[in-house]
């Protein structure tokens, strides 16, 4: 097994033979590891020629909310037009330190957005699940 363990900067393959995947990066015709972990080969993706090569982190790292990830959090503040959420879990992985997110009035429901009342939808302390939206991304907030 140990032979499969690689560390950042290690040259793990020729870019000609493999497509760089998670935990790796490609740099002048080589693929390098960018994290500590176990080197793994995966079959080529649909339409892809070369098999994937990835470095799989064994150590659990703290989750970060990204666009479109489903997050779970606690409502910390409710205002007439927005609610602030402290994100505690991304997918099913708890974060080490919580991230702040904002639910804006128009994003509470898909339909009849104008009928939504923030106070009727949220109370401080509620646990909520959300999908993080691109436009929130622009707002510079997570979740």
């Amino acid at each position, binding site marked *: 097994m140990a032979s499969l363990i690689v560390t950042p900067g290690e040259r793990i393959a020729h870019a000609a033979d493999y497509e760089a995947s998670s935990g790796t990066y490609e740099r002048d015709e080589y693929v390098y590891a960018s994290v500590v972990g176990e080197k793994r080969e995966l079959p080529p993706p649909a339409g892809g020629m070369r098999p994937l090569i990835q470095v799989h982190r064994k150590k659990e790292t703290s989750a970060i909310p990204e666009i479109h990830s489903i997050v*779970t959090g606690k409502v910390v503040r409710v205002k007439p037009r927005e609610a602030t959420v402290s994100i505690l879990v991304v997918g099913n*992985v708890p974060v080490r330190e919580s991230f702040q997110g904002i639910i804006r009035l128009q994003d509470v429901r*898909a339909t009849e957005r104008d009928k*939504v009342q923030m106070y009727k939808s949220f109370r401080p302390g509620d*646990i909520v*699940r959300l999908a993080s939206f691109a436009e929130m991304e622009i707002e510079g907030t997570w979740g």
Partner: protein
Amino acid sequence: MDIDTAADATTNGASHFTLDADTFRKIHPAEYNRRFISQGVRADGRPLQRFRKANVNVGSITTANGSSMVRLGNTTVICGIKAEVTEPTPEAPRAGFLVPNLDLPALCSPQFRPGPPGELAQTISEYINQICTSTNLLNLDDLCIASGQAVWVLHADILCLNYEGNALDAALAALIAALWNVRLPKSTYDELEGTVRAAATNTIPLVLNRLPLAATFGVFDAQHLIADPTDQEEPLLSSQLAIVVDQEDNLCGILKEGSAMDRERMVECIGLARNRAQALRRLIDEALAKADAS
């Protein structure tokens, strides 16, 4: 647990939600711990009144006159004592100084931010200082080099490397171990130059009048008494109690905070504290013996 329906709409039928232990702990820490403690065990598997495994070693820092490293579970502190020369006060011309300070840097836990010490560090430093002075831990006159001219000041800096709760017990133990490990160079005061010359090799140990050690308890939900709380448990406690005991089973300080506690429970804790202090003292003894041997 309530998953808000209005909000759920936004997930527009995304992957359904599974509530595993870690998630539950993150979202409902109090409830999570309650389920354990009501069963008579703690989230880390300890019985309610079991202290964490302690570990002591001394003398590893060669730039300090005395040093120690103490571990309570994963709470790790290092104490380094540097002896320097200073002027005594007009009131007490022979008395030296002992200046203990605990630092809880941002390095040791995400709950601490960079910058000057926060309330926890300040208050623990102060309480340790009060213990040192009010129990006259060491005779400050022993630190005199030349009366009214020069005395030793012992800067005892206690640094936390990893904070997982109960800094007081660890910090005080580290201070005592380090003080015990201190060697002061034999020194002479030069009247003419007004300087202090210290011998390179010839050193003397400190005399400690007593060896006070702390044992901290918490009360969960105003009923369950737990010993040696972790950083996960600390914010959930309804009250906290720290008891300091010396080698002759004298009490050297009690600090009680939070919701009301009756007399019987306090007495119960004093008993538990005695055993803990004894155990810690034995560990320090062994560590010092080991250091002297090598």
